């Protein structure tokens, strides 16, 4: 059994099915990349995994714990072991960059003042934005926000990371740097991750396995090499276009 186990997951909005029957497993310390066309429900799937959207039916197990129907307090506790990078970064716009990064640490009350400052500086250095520390989110570019969002998600040293398009909106060079950073942290902290991306270059760097979501089901699952050899027409079209 994997660290993340998804079985027969179904979800619909206003009667329109988005996920029909999703089955996925991610082993501890591994990274699964999910590919798929825009609007197929990749973000919805990630939000399901962290309990932001309630599924219609199915099962999502994280570290063996079933999260569908979980008591809200337990869900909050579980989420503290997880990190989530939002597609739009979702920075708190009433706080500076510093405030955004300190916030999850202060709420957890595990570190003292000095450790918090050190941790914030370290995270900003990792994403290459030390100069932005006193800026407000509205003063940042889209790509900068994304990187601050990444720093905020990782600052609590989660065991499980969910990335929604970590490199979208970044220039190719920064995108590659961020992919390498994700890969590096992965190895250093044995994170278990799921990353949604359209960026094949990023997938090449971070993925242990890839899955393709299409029409509400996982139509391919395997390594990137398997993917290149796949005979599935949708997979072929997807690779040809990438």
């Amino acid at each position, binding site marked *: 059994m994997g660290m993340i186990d998804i079985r027969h997951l179904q979800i619909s909005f206003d009667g329109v099915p988005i996920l029909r029957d999703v089955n996925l497993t991610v082993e501890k310390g591994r990274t699964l990349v999910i590919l798929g066309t825009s609007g197929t429900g990749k973000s919805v799937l990630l*939000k399901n995994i*962290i309990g*932001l959207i309630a599924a219609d039916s199915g099962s999502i197990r994280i570290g063996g714990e079933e999260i569908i129907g979980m008591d*809200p307090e337990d869900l*909050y*506790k579980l*989420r*503290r072991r*997880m990190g*989530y990078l*939002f597609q*739009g970064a*979702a*920075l*708190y*716009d009433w706080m500076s960059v510093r405030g955004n990064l300190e*916030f*999850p640490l202060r*709420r*957890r009350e595990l570190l003292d003042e000095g450790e918090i400052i050190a941790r914030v500086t370290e995270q900003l250095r990792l994403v290459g934005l030390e100069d932005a520390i006193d800026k407000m989110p509205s003063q940042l570019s889209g790509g900068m926000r994304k990187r601050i969002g990444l720093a905020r998600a990782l600052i*609590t040293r989660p065991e499980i990371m969910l990335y929604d398009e970590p490199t979208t909106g970044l220039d190719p060079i920064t995108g590659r740097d961020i992919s390498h950073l994700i890969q590096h942290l992965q190895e250093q902290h044995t994170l278990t991750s799921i990353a949604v991306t359209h960026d094949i270059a990023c997938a090449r760097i971070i993925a242990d396995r890839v899955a393709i979501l299409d029409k509400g089901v996982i139509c391919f699952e395997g390594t990137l090499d398997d993917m290149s050899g796949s005979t599935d027409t949708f997979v072929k079209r997807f690779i040809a276009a990438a």
Partner: protein
Amino acid sequence: MKAAYLRFAGLVGNTTGFAWRCLRDAFRPPYESKEILKHLDELGAKSLPLVGTTGLMIGLIIAIQSRPVLARFGAEMYVPAMVSISVVRELGPILTALMVTGRVGSGISAELGSMRVTEQIDALEVSGINSFRYLVVTRVIACTLLLPLLTGIVDVLAILGAFVAALTETHVSANLFFHSAVYSLWLRDIIPAILKTVVFGFIIGVIGCRQGYTVTGGTAGVGHASTNAVVTASLLILFTDLVLAKLTVLLWG
């Protein structure tokens, strides 16, 4: 038509549920007192100039309007009493509530609404924070505490305003004026008025937060939410005021 009634019933149900959740969570730890103080400070500072001006103005206006009317009955000396009683019992609470609805209620719903559409509320939830308690309950508490304070300020300024009006028209002694304004007030004028402002504050907080917190439909939805918050809260406040007025008169006269 039937659909409209059903929608209305649904709305009432949802809002009641939301209000109940606020009440219940307000009395459960952790209390987030730092957040509450922050909101009190921000919302108070935001409304003070507006509310202060309102107070002075209504004092001036009622004094100017009531003097000739009372003079008709040879009751000019009742101007201070007339002002203080009408302001404390009714005008202070209702005008403050309506002004704060326009200023703060709409602001809260726009703020929470934009947090919702930009997924900042989801971001709080994801980092293990109960966003309802952190964002909603703290604001509702702040509004509930704020309204009695602001109303008190309005009442005092209104009586001052009335005194200014009196000064320009006749020769009055400050001593006599304030003595008459204050001693004509009974406890039964003051206590129900304070209780009522608490209810108004709660309404402003709950409606403003509900509209914003449950926004759907992106940025356009945020605009609707904030207009709706003002309309709904204003109507609800007027209606509540009517019910409470009747109730108080029945109980205390």
